């Protein structure tokens, strides 16, 4: 069993358990909401964009990022330790020969603490089931037309790691400042469903 996530029944059970815990004084009123707010605070695609731009501008940072993303993002003041325990981050980089795209076929695993909540399409059954089978067709529907000889690597976040893509730096951006470059990077680019 891997794909059954009926939401209504489990949501009801969770609310019931929450109410019981509050009644018995094991949980303060609103404590769960506060914990979730703390977890999401600071999570935004801007974090990913800052990491990407640093990798574009600094080849050493780029290489360290691909080898050990958790340690390397601390150099720009970010971390994957926003939740109960630090999650492993795996960063993959696009280049002329290869394009990477991320999915979680089993549910919707995503680096939330770093990038904020995932887009709704990322959680849709259509994206999750189709991008592993026909990534070129799905990317085409997102408006991304890759050259026929570009290899496509799909990453299925099926276990404990979370993933982020470093898009290719657009041509014609040589004179751009760091903040101008950050403005070019989109959430779709960080997932791999857009060029940048």
């Amino acid at each position: 069993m891997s794909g059954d996530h009926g939401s209504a029944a489990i949501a009801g059970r969770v609310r019931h358990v929450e109410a019981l815990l509050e009644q018995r004084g094991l949980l303060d009123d609103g404590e769960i909401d506060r914990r979730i707010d703390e977890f999401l605070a600071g999570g935004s695609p801007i974090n990913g964009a800052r990491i990407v731009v640093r990798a574009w501008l600094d080849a050493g940072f780029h290489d360290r990022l691909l080898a050990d993303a958790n340690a390397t993002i601390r150099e720009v003041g970010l971390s994957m330790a926003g939740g109960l325990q630090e999650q492993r981050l795996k960063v993959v980089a696009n280049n002329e020969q290869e394009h990477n795209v991320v999915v979680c076929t089993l549910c919707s695993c995503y680096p939330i603490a770093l990038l904020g909540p995932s887009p709704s399409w990322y959680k849709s059954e259509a994206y999750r089931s189709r991008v592993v089978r026909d990534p070129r067709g799905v990317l085409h529907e997102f408006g991304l037309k890759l050259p026929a000889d570009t290899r496509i690597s799909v990453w299925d976040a099926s276990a404990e790691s979370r993933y982020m893509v470093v898009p290719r730096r657009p041509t014609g951006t040589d004179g751009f400042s760091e903040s101008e470059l950050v403005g070019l990077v989109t959430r779709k680019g960080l997932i791999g469903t857009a060029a940048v």
Partner: protein
Amino acid sequence: MHPAIWLMTDRFAPGDRVRTSSRDPEWHTRLPRYTRGVVGEVVEVAGHHPLADDRARGRSGREQAVYHVRFAAADLFGDGTHSVTVELWEDYLEPAADHEREMTA
């Protein structure tokens, strides 16, 4: 990291050809259905974690290696030129048979 993990030996290393389990368990598993019974290549060790199947059944679960395993689309689906890299617990994997190790992904 817990000291016990340092002493644990991973069964597989990058470059090893492995075949995934073809079992269809009754419980929650994180071996996706489309990757069952397929040969792929270990590309990286992605840490050590208790088996998801055990935790889903309320068991503590033994810590074991989790690997990035890369599959050729043609091996998963019968066609396609892309690759799919999936993160799989050691218990889901067996060494590929000798004749399967020569195949290229």
